[in-house]
């Protein structure tokens, strides 16, 4: 036992010595593990927190960029309000480049609605502003409506181009009829309205069916209107308008001197069955039939009756004046078309005009298409190239004539027939404008107004140069209108110089003398701004970009955001898709 005890004691020393060495190593290992664990935990925590300030910083930068863009936009609009002329800009797409404003770096571009360089006389432009703060860019757009100054002597348009429809005696819009802007017209602007004018007094003469479509239409009555008719201006059918303090002069044209005393080319009635031209001069009844094509070149022509039927075509080459001593008829596929874009024609018609199952102002392919409709006119055609005047009685005009469109007929032109009964029949479309005595648009008939015919200043601009601050006509205006209406002059003789002289405008400029607004010198010599010259509205670019990407079912290449449809639907995921570019 003693020996065993010795062994145990001896071995016990050895064990203690060995255990001491092992414990020293374990403590180190444990310490390393603890340090590693603490490092991992700390690193994880720090990593989890490090994005938060960045997110807040992005939000801050985005907000700062937004307001910097707003400031730059205000600056650009102010420049337009102070008379910035687009024609003077060498590069409108870089109106402002990298300017420091409101803590951001901003750039401003001016384009037209399609993103191209605007025309010098553009009336509507898009101002695109982008501002960057801290790497975050905010882009916004504004639609700016520009109102170019109109020479004072051009404020009155005797042809009443500012009205899409002007009815002197009665106006009827039947069920399903349409009066709207022509969408293809370059004159259509965002928020623009079109005008319907009436020259009669009784509200019973105005009949607008509840299911007719009056798009963005304003109603204007004249001084003769009863209070009941004036109250129609505020009805839900219309988007405003005004009771004008004057009698709008709807006058007929006299025969121009160029169409008088023409050489007599034929004393017999003619029926033309083959393609040919006609010499300038006077004819009796002329009927073009059986798909024949007759070309009228620059000059004046006179006919008793002019009739185009059975796919016949009257081609207009150059500046042509046509005097119809009696009727003008285009029927059964007949067409009046132009040789080129520079050609134009004016018809002076003494009696009735009929357009049945035919077309005027468009290519023969449309007139010969039996299933033609308003949609057949795919692109814009200037309606002012084809004008139809009803002659006044002193020029041989009938006391009461008719203008009838029937059977899906199409007319691209301007009709000025203040004494005529005008009917736009079912399925018929008139692109342009019309003036008539009794105007009726039948079910399915449409009048699509071309806003380019409106000069922007005239009777309907109640805060324009024709009226004083109190809304009354300027001195001399009523005398001018009375003279015009009483027949002192006819439509074609209402000259700019006459109007300019009577209005005291000396031909141009002015227009602001009545209120002196522009003649005032700002007390602090700040460049004067005229808010009316540039009216800006925000445009929901970001929202539309997002929607267009959904509508096209493809990712957007829009202006503002990297719109990822997938990310839009799963916003908890990809934060990158949310960043403003």
């Amino acid at each position, binding site marked *: 036992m003693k020996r065993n005890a010795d062994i*145990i004691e001896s071995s016990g020393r*050895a064990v203690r010595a060995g255990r001491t060495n092992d414990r020293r190593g374990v403590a180190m290992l444990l310490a390393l593990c603890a340090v590693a664990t603490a490092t991992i935990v700390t690193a994880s925590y720090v990593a989890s927190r490090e994005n938060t300030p960045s997110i807040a910083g992005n939000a801050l930068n985005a907000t700062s960029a937004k307001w910097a863009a707003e400031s730059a936009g205000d600056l650009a609009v102010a420049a337009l309000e102070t008379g910035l002329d687009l024609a003077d800009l060498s590069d409108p797409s870089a109106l402002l480049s990298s300017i420091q404003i409101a803590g951001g770096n901003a750039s401003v571009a001016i384009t037209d609605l399609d993103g191209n360089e605007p025309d010098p006389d553009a009336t509507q432009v898009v101002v695109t502003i982008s501002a960057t703060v801290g790497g975050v860019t905010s882009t916004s757009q504004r639609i700016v409506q520009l109102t170019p100054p109109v020479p004072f002597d051009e404020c009155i348009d005797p042809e009443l181009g500012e009205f899409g429809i002007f009815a002197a005696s009665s106006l009827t819009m039947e069920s399903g009829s349409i009066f709207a802007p022509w969408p293809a017209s370059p004159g259509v602007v965002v928020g623009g309205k079109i005008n319907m004018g009436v020259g009669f007094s009784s509200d019973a003469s105005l009949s607008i069916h509840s299911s007719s479509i009056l798009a*963005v239409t304003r109603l204007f009555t004249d001084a003769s209107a009863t209070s009941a008719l004036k109250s129609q201006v505020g009805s839900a059918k219309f988007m405003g308008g005004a009771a004008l303090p004057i009698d709008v002069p709807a006058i007929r044209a006299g025969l121009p001197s160029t169409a008088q005393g023409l050489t007599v080319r034929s004393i017999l009635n003619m029926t033309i069955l083959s393609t040919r031209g006609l010499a300038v001069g006077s004819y009796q009844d002329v009927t073009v039939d059986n798909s024949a094509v007759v070309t009228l070149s620059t000059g004046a022509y006179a006919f008793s009756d002019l009739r185009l039927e059975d796919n016949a075509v009257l081609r207009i080459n150059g500046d042509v004046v046509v005097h119809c001593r009696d009727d003008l008829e285009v029927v059964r596929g007949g067409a009046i078309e132009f040789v080129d874009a520079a050609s134009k024609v004016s018809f002076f018609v003494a009696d009735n005009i009929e357009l049945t199952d035919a077309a005027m102002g468009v290519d023969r392919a449309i007139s010969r298409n039996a299933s033609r409709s308003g949609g057949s006119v795919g692109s814009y055609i200037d309606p002012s190239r084809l004008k139809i005047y009803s002659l006044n009685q002193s020029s041989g005009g009938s006391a009461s004539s008719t203008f009838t469109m029937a059977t899906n007929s199409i007319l691209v032109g301007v009709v000025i027939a203040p004494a005529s009964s005008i009917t736009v029949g079912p399925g018929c479309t008139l692109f342009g404008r019309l003036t008539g005595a009794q105007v009726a648009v039948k079910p399915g008939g449409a009048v699509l107004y071309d806003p380019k015919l409106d000069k922007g200043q005239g009777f309907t601009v109640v805060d324009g140069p024709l009226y004083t601050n109190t809304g009354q006509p300027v001195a001399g205006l009523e005398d001018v209108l009375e003279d015009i209406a009483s027949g002192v002059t006819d439509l074609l003789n209402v000259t700019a110089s006459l109007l300019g002289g009577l209005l005291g405008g000396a031909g141009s400029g002015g227009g602001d003398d009545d209120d002196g607004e522009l003649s005032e010198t700002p007390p602090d010599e700040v460049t004067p701004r005229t808010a009316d010259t540039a009216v800006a509205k925000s445009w929901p670019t970001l929202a539309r970009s997002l929607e267009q990407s959904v509508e096209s079912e493809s990712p957007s290449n829009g202006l503002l955001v990297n719109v990822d449809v997938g990310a839009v639907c799963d916003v908890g995921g990809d934060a990158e898709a949310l960043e403003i570019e």
Partner: protein
Amino acid sequence: MNHFTRTSRFTARPGLTLIELLIALVITALMGLAIGSMMTMVGSVSERDRTERAALLRAHAGQVRLRAYMDPALCVLQHDEDDHAAVVWLYDMNGAEAVNLTELRLIGVNDDGELTVEWVKFPENWTELQLIAADLTVPAGSDFAGAIALQRGLGYTRTTTLLTGVSDAAWTFSEKTPPESSRVRLGLTLESGDASFGALYAFGLKDHAQPE
């Protein structure tokens, strides 16, 4: 030889007493428990932090997307408290001061907890005349949401999602009626993980205008 062998074995494999072994086990267990608890706690905190950050990201995304609609908006025309929805007059494309169908946007929360925007979109193959005829003017004071619902029934609306995981929404207006209000507030309750977070958006309609 035997003595030497036993002595060497005891030296190479020093044993622990039972007490020492138990103490070592307890210490190890306690340390393991402590580390485990700490890791669990850190994991829990990290998870909560992650959900909070996810909610923050989504709230920011919602702010960007809602701002795209509310900043240029002209007017909030109608508010449906039951459906947490509002009808916004986004822009005045077709006629100044009058609302047309295509200018309306319905912003609301659907049954799937998605904040969506819905708008009227007529078929691409329609002619311009058809578009003009269909894009009706909706008079002020009308049931704008009903007008959109009517178009929805005809299949003429499109919808996209602005935000998911929305359990509640509340609109607040600066005036008595939505159309009069030039300032609008939208409070959303966002679901993230098992937690809910509140997000509050305030919008000023700088181009505020009421339709005629």
